[in-house]
């Protein structure tokens, strides 16, 4: 039973793609297919936390000053935060390489 981090080749895939390390899904960076990323405008933000509540990925966190930011390892760029932000503080910018 392997506990390797990430299978590089098909031979390294565990039978049935079984995963033996609890909590290891945090290492699975699901944001890789994102086409757009959210950008926060701290001037417009009133720190209401709606973006934080609505993010379906649960990837928005509050910083020390009470502002919000997305962990781009998991943000899939759905734009829900931007849609829900009623002050228009979040813009969706094209993802660039």
């Amino acid at each position, binding site marked *: *039973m392997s506990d390797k981090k990430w299978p590089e080749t*098909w031979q390294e*895939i565990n*039978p049935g793609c*079984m995963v033996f390390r609890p909590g290891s899904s945090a290492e699975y960076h699901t944001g890789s297919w994102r086409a757009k990323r959210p950008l926060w405008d701290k001037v417009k933000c009133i720190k209401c936390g709606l973006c934080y509540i609505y993010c379906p990925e649960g990837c928005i966190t509050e910083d020390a000053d009470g502002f919000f930011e997305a962990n781009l390892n998991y943000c899939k760029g759905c734009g829900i935060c931007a849609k829900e932000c009623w002050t228009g503080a979040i813009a969706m910018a094209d993802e660039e390489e």
Partner: protein
Amino acid sequence: MGKRIGIEVAIAAAEAAALCRFEVAAVYPITPQSHVAEHLSDIVNDGRVDASFITVEGEHSALSAAIGASGTGARVITATSSQGLLYMSEVMPIASGMRVPIVMIVANRAVSSPINIWNDHSDIMPMRDTGWITFFSENGQEAVDMVIQAYKVAEHRDVMLPVDVMMDGFQLTHMVEPLFMPDQEEVDRFLPPYVPYATLHPDNPVSMGTLAMPDIFAEAQKSKDAALVNSLTVIKEVWKEWEELFGRKYEPVQTYLTEDADVAMVTMGSMGETAEVAVDELRRQGIKAGLIKIKLWRPFPFEDLKKAVKGIRVVAVMDRAVSFGGPGGPVFSEIRSALYDEPARPAVVNFIIGLGGRDIQVVDFVDMMKKAAAGKLAEPYEFYGVRG
């Protein structure tokens, strides 16, 4: 060495699962599989095995429950037929993708519509690509033997795949046949207790059936394909061992009088027995006929087939299912494709016969073989005996 008894084949197949000491049965009854379901339920009810019987509300749940149970490390049996198998179709690739060694008995029956409860192979053919090992039994004895062999193959550490065992509906399921039921001690010797690769248990957490994104999905599928292809070696080993213990020989491609044959039929399932009689009859008439029976449908035994057709001029494939709007029956396209690269390949022709329980008699096989030998098929495939 087992006792020879007269027994209904569906019941015998359930008894075979009991000899394997199954621990969970999750089954929904459907004609002509019902006697398997009923008898499995009786076996559990009578306490003859230390097992749970899960009464599910449909086949989708039956296979889902079977997967969950197998994930906990239990030896699992399920069974179905026709629409029930199609209802399971969403779950079938999940079982093979998760590599759970479930054994399923399929009482082959036509699929709707029109509604028909009798035998053909149109239920299993759409399941061809779901990643299950697929055995085709020819008679009651083979159905019993294959259920037991199936567990040994499925649970082998180099395989870990679900196996389904075909037995033709009514033709086999509802027949009372004389057959050898192996002894419990013999089966125990052949089939050790199941030692799972991993189990769903809180003390040792493991995730099964996880997400795979585009950057790893193809690798996952390749590993599943390789497991299925490589299972051929294990299947042959297990069949060899079976032959040594029980004296009954199983091969992925079994031949009858093909060595000097000019024309040969290819059959799967119960029609092989009638075809054998037809070959004898053709030989009496001076036609060098032979018979090729496919016992292992997945993984397909390409090399064994190539060996079997050596020197044969015409191969007539008997399909008991239609690939609508396709290149002929599913077995036909498989066999033609398997032989395409052979420098001296035989002509391969296709008859679609025995749909929805239509009787196939010795005279029909004789007639088809003569037609094939004379190159008298107008179409690339022919619905044999269809009126009009």
